[in-house]
């Protein structure tokens, strides 16, 4: 196939267009049409060897829509199918042009954005508290009626969010336990108080790290999964389908997930504490020469209340993580991209909330002297 470049030839009374007016020659055509002024006399299109929608558009823009229309009426050498293409194109081009967006000053734009974001944030917290209320209300309504308990779904969720999370929680807290012990050995060793490394590991894991690490892992692993599961159902109109079948999506999807986390997070906290203490014990044994018997002896002297102070936070964290994960799922709109955005948002929010609540709790327990 010869690649004849598009050309414009001026004759006495008329202008002859020739060559390939196609997408492949878009740039050449553009240069050519900038150079040449639209002709006054007749225009001959019959010698154009190839014409596609891209070339036709450039032709129409150059000649102007009305001019091209007149040319099409006068022109006789043009193949009928080309004429049809140009006419179809002209019909499409004659629609009103899209409205131009008015430019706004950057200051106004910034203020608009600030206002929108603030309003969105407020609306978001409003929604969150509404959703919490909805979940609590349906939970109590179901608790009173054992016939509506969804045991299978609950057990399945416990399996996925609890049992399957044990290895990663155990490994991670084991490593953190070892790190804390090393830290204690370094700092306390300078005072010749290596033995207090055991207390450091014990207090930090019983009160804070056990539950905090388990909750953060759950936020990353499970809140995201909840959002993605419920969100893709929302995007696929499955939630609407549930509603039209007279089923309550909150009862069906949210309650088992919330209850499952309420059960699994305290258990995972226990796993985390045990595994952290094991990590500490290993470091104590290997690098501080504290035998296991002595380690356990010191642990036994730590009051139980420190463990309870840690454990009491677990259900609260679990509720927050589950509710945020599920709510973000319900906020998904339409597209798959939205599922991704809300999944990210649910992880960020739930980790933020877990750490914020933990800080408040630490302050509270300190003031109470617990």
């Amino acid at each position, binding site marked *: 196939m010869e690649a004849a470049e598009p050309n414009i030839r001026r004759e006495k009374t008329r202008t002859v267009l020739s060559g390939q007016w196609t997408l492949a020659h*878009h740039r050449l055509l553009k240069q050519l049409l900038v150079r040449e002024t639209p002709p006054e006399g007749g225009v001959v299109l019959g010698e154009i060897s190839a014409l*596609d*929608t891209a070339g036709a558009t450039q032709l129409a823009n150059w000649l102007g829509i009305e001019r091209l229309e007149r040319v099409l009426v006068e022109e006789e050498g043009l193949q009928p199918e080309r004429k*049809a*293409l140009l006419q*179809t194109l002209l019909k499409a*081009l004659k629609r009103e042009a899209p409205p131009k967006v008015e430019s706004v000053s950057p200051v106004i734009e910034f203020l608009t954005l600030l206002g929108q974001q603030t309003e969105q944030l407020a609306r978001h917290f409003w929604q969150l508290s509404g959703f919490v209320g909805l979940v609590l209300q349906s939970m109590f309504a179901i608790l009173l009626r054992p016939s509506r308990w969804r045991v299978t779904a609950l057990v399945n969720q416990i399996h996925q969010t609890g049992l399957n999370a044990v290895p990663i929680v155990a490994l991670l807290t084991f490593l953190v336990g070892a790190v804390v012990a090393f830290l204690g050995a370094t700092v306390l060793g300078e005072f010749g108080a290596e033995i207090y490394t055991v207390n450091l590991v014990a207090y930090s894991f019983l009160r804070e790290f056990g539950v905090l690490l388990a909750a953060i892992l759950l936020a990353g692993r499970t809140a995201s999964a909840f959002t993605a599961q419920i969100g893709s159902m929302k995007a696929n109109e499955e939630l609407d389908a549930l509603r039209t079948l007279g089923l309550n999506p909150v009862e069906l999807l949210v309650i088992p997930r919330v209850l499952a986390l309420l059960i699994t997070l305290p258990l995972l906290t226990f796993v985390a504490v045990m595994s952290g203490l094991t990590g500490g014990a290993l470091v104590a044994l290997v690098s501080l020469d504290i035998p296991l018997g002595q380690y356990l002896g010191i642990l036994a002297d730590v009051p139980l209340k420190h463990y309870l102070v840690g454990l009491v936070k677990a259900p609260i964290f679990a509720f927050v993580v589950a509710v945020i994960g599920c709510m973000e799922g319900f906020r998904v709109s339409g597209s798959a*991209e939205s599922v991704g955005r809300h999944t990210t948002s649910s992880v960020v929010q739930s980790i933020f909330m877990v750490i914020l609540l933990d800080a408040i709790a630490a302050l509270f327990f300190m003031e109470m002297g617990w």
Partner: protein
Amino acid sequence: MSKETVIEVSGLCNRFGRNSVHENLDLELYRGEILGVVGGSGTGKSVLLRSIVGLIRPKEGEVRLFGRNLLALPVAERSKLEQRLGVLFQGGALFSSLTVRENVALPLIEHAKLARRDAEELAEVKLALAGLAPHAGDLYPASLSGGMVKRAALARALALDPDVLFLDEPTAGLDPIGAADFDQLLLTLRNALGLTVFMVTHDLDSLWTACDRIAVLSQKRVLVADTPENVADYDDNWIQNYFNGPRGRAAYRAVQGN
């Protein structure tokens, strides 16, 4: 009319696990024709489309596009060949993170190396050709109606002015007026650009109005591929039910009336 073969499918076998979809399927597509592909649910119409455009590697057999096997080509040449194909997927498959206009402009920027402004201007024309309202270009696919998604996807399939256009149920979800416009648009484009069209459809009106030939998929192969009239007369139970059932007859009468 000389028949130049654009696509040649020979001995195609597609199996998924134990489930065999195609066995020894042969099909030819000639330049400038509109081929309608029909078949019952699960006869592998979409699978056939996907094997032709190279998304599925067939277990056996060969698909030749413009005389070349797409799957055997080096990456650069394959991409060049793929640019000559336009595909309209059943669900539209618009990129959800781009606006409709950017969706259409993307291939123009990436392959035709147009400047963004030119590409978007041209994209706007394609959207107009596909029959979308002027403000639709700024919308994201999530906020489009089903019919608008179809039109936007068609505009993207036409972006590079392809030689062969693959359509997977293009008129499903369009209202009858939109579907009729679509048929006309298809015919206009085919006549003007010499487009070759492979159309999977259930729309009997489309089949009668737009298609030059119809290929019927049945019993894991192409049972018959011929002009609509000949296919409608073919002696097969399913085909008779399809074309000469109440809907088939109504569609045929409508075309005869014109």
